[in-house]
């Protein structure tokens, strides 16, 4: 049994890493907003979904233009990523302005419910537009980066099987890591990033430092939503077919990744996302084996969530979260 698990390990790692990277970038959006407003922005999954739709629409439009096919696909992807990130970033900023800012001082439950409302609105608006324009809300984008690649792990050791993947896997992975590293740099090394951390800690005192708190919160929403939208594009590239409801379960998983890593903690969200992706892929590959066929691969979520529950029982603040104790 162990041998079989080892055999599939390279493939599990590669698939898990790509899925985990997607979770991680989306989780960043949850954790940033939570860090600064203590709000769980349930609409974030829908921003991701909106990004997937905007990206796919752009791909279809661009691919329809003859000259684009002579441009390397990677440039098209970069263009689509940037445009989509800007649009979803603005969307997130707008949502904050209209739906959350008026409730800034309301009890925490109220903006939470508003966020759920916003997520329903986004789902239905996108479904409406997609259905109106194409007669079907399930949309398939152009297939990109479909070349198969194989890494010959078997030449390293005969225990392993070879791992194979589409080029798109690599694209997803590399882009997601670039996004994460840039964000980490931004938060920890730049003035506005530091201001964001300051506002997250203490809004009043931050404003005494002449930091414009509303602007800082807007920037946070912009960046979080831009990351979410860009990941939506990656998701569309990876899986091809999207519908207006993909944001719910993925958003849920990303939220859980954020909690797993310690909500409010940027690096925690990254770690949590990647861990959750790996666990899920591991379960999906080995669950049948491990349970002697009682639970199939479709129980992968149960496995992943059980791990989450265990982590939360023994370390409720998350893997990288710090227990809140402050010197007064």
């Amino acid at each position, binding site marked *: 049994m162990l041998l079989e698990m080892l055999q599939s390990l390279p493939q599990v790692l590669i698939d898990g890493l790509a899925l985990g990277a997607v979770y991680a970038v989306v989780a960043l959006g949850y954790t940033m907003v939570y860090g600064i407003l203590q709000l769980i922005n349930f609409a974030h999954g829908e921003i991701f979904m909106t990004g997937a739709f905007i990206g796919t629409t752009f791909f279809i439009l661009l691919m329809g233009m003859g000259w684009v096919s002579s441009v390397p696909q990677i440039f098209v992807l970069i263009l689509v990523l940037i445009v989509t990130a800007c649009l979803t970033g603005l969307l997130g900023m707008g949502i904050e302005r209209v739906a959350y800012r008026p409730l800034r001082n309301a009890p925490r439950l109220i903006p939470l419910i508003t966020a759920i409302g916003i997520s329903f609105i986004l789902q239905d608006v996108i479904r409406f537009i997609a259905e109106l324009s194409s007669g079907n809300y399930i949309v398939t984008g152009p297939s990109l980066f479909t070349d198969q690649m194989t890494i010959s792990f078997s030449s390293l050791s005969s225990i392993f099987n070879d791992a194979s993947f589409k080029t798109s896997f690599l694209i997803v992975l590399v882009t997601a890591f670039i996004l994460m590293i840039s964000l980490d740099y931004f938060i920890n090394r730049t*003035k506005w990033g*530091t*201001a964001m*951390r*300051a506002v997250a*800690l*203490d809004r*009043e*005192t*931050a*404003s*005494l*430092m*002449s*930091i*414009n*708190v509303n602007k800082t919160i807007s920037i946070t929403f912009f960046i979080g939503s831009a990351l979410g939208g860009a990941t939506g594009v990656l998701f569309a590239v990876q899986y091809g077919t999207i519908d207006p409801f993909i944001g719910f379960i993925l958003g849920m998983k990303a939220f859980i990744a954020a909690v797993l890593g310690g909500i409010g903690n940027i690096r925690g969200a990254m770690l949590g996302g990647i861990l959750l992706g790996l666990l899920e892929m591991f379960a999906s590959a080995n669950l049948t084996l491990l349970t002697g066929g009682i639970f199939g691969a479709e129980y992968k979520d149960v496995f992943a969530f059980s791990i989450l529950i265990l982590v939360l029982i023994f370390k409720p603040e998350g893997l990288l979260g710090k227990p809140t104790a*402050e*010197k*007064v």
Partner: protein
Amino acid sequence: MPILEVNNIETYYGGIQALKGISVYVNKGEIVTLIGSNGAGKSTTLKSISGLAKVKTGSILFKGKETMNKPVHETCLLGMAHVPEGRKIFSTLTVKENLLMGAFSVNNKQLIEERMEIVFGHFPILKKRLEQKGGTMSGGEQQMLAIGRALMMEPELLMLDEPSMGLAPIIVEQIFDIIKKLNQNGITILLVEQNAYQALNIAHRGYVIRNGEIVLSGKGSELIENIEIRDAYLA
């Protein structure tokens, strides 16, 4: 002309009136102290001046310009710095990052460096602790950081809310010495304190607040002698 003129302001917290017509002025170069017991309205007065608390009626003139109810991040650009009660340093930011936040509105790197050197001149300990997280320092060091952070704004008026709170007597003395020195360097100071005697000792003038009203004002040395002070406290 006074650098700060607060005229008859009234501030409410919800339905509760915290300030019932407070008038205070501060001349350039002075140390002025607001003293009074817990809940008298001292902190609220400072918050009303910096914009953290919404004022209902009255007027606040800073350097002759109306600043009442302006957004906080704008009032502190005018040259007033407010060191809040309880120090409120950014606990998970390093000492350096805390100081940099004080100079948030400054984009000139060299200017920031210069100001930081001035802060180190007053608080050499901060230089040694630059990369340490603010929250890991002792209370006295945190107070020094809080004042240092405010000095990064190069304020003309420095408003300090109970800088002696929770500190050992020897540290309190140090802090008061520094306040005096900052004043000698030309910074006007508005000092809120419960520690009445020490505050009045270094202040040029003082006001006693009780229940949201000024009940007494005068020169620092006179107020110390004034027996009514004790009454105001005991009440």
